[in-house]
């Protein structure tokens, strides 16, 4: 394998109403962020089951970020409050198990914040690149 430079694999879960629209706006404004970020659309950030986050890591993702509406602005009124609690518990548990905390993040991005979306992705990729490959949560059967 002639991989010169390690490029992390980032999975981003974005809620349809705010953060996905914010990502679209980043595109409309031709802002740049690394292609390592792949976005999965969900109706609300509360749809993101911790199992999905673990699955992403298991299959080789190096970082997972969940984006949703700002608390108080959820299209479904209360979804992101549950996201906030659930992800706080999950991240704390992953940290407890020794998984580097920079590999996971929750960011609140509104539909008008294209610039924030791009900046967040740039920052996140930079941090995950610095950590190197995710070895601790990887399922060795899923290697290419």
């Amino acid at each position: 394998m002639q991989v010169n430079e390690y490029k992390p694999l980032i999975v981003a879960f974005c809620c349809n109403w705010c953060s996905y629209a914010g990502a679209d706006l980043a595109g409309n404004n031709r802002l740049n962020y690394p292609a390592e970020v792949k976005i999965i659309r969900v109706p609300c950030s509360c749809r993101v089951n911790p199992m999905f986050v673990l699955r992403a890591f298991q299959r080789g993702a190096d970082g997972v970020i969940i984006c949703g509406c700002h608390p108080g602005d959820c299209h479904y009124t209360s979804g992101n409050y549950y996201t906030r609690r659930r992800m706080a518990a999950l991240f704390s548990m992953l940290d407890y198990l020794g998984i580097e905390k920079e590999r996971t993040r929750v960011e609140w991005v509104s539909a008008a914040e294209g610039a924030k979306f791009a900046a967040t992705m740039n920052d996140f990729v930079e941090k995950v690149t610095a950590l190197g490959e995710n070895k601790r949560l990887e399922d060795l059967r899923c290697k290419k």
Partner: protein
Amino acid sequence: MQKITREQLIEKAVSLLADGTVSCVLGWSKGEFDYDVTPALFNNEEELKANFVFNDFCGVNFSKYLISKTNKCDGKILVFLKPCDTYSFNQLLTEHRFDREKVYAVGIPCEGMADIAKVKQICGDGISSIAFDGEKMAVTTLYDDAPVMISTADVLAERCVNCKSKKHVAFDELMGDEGEVIDSNRFDEVEKLEAMTPDERFAFWQNELSRCIRCNACRDVCPACTCEKCVFDNPNSGVENKSPANSFEEKMFHIIRAFHVAGRCTDCGECSRVCPQNIPLHLLNRKFIKDMNEFYGEYQAGAEVGLRAPLVDYTLTDIEPGEVFDRGDSDA
């Protein structure tokens, strides 16, 4: 070492059977070994006199068994509940898992239950019999003639060393005096782990969790794990798996299970008790409980029927997920 005796419990059960209050009894039964006490359903006085036991190895929490046994019994079922068991009892009622009307709960006092692993550490394998005498137990093995005298207080299960409450939160009748909630040190081990570096923590957990053989005993005994179809058996969930293919599978099973019971776990300690590989599973569940207490206020699952668990609740000013790392106990 227990304040209440087997005879007193049998007498209570017999009298409740006789006056028709209950038609069967859920209690502890003699197992293969003296320390291997199993839950069983007793229908009459003969069965009780023959097989019912009560000693320092009666850690079994009956709450979970009520879900299936209330269907097997025509009238009410008598269940003996230690203080820690009553929390699971309330939690299962909150989740509508069994009919309260079909249960007659008798709260019994508990001085702590012994951990056979600790006993084996002192006197080795091959235990042929254990006799109880007040504060001590006489352990006879196949390899020694004379029984080893062990003080029960020295071999208490970890969950009993850090007992959180001697107060029963649910009962129809109480035997003995009412106990009190205890300010326990049950989070000390969790804090010790939190103080380690991430690398040390990872090494610790990899060591512990890689011994898991996916026997599922922890899931099967856990009162919070009472789903009709477990997510690990559900083909639509995407995480169905049974066999340990490699070390990651075990981590994922344990993280997911701990997450699913988060906010519903009453910290009864059964999971660690039944694990054949002695994995300290309670350290995962207690981490969640400690986190919930710190982030969202003190919460004890099952303290009352109808409480709202932290993960199905919210406030407008909850802690942000990124902030959990800045609490000063874990390092960069």
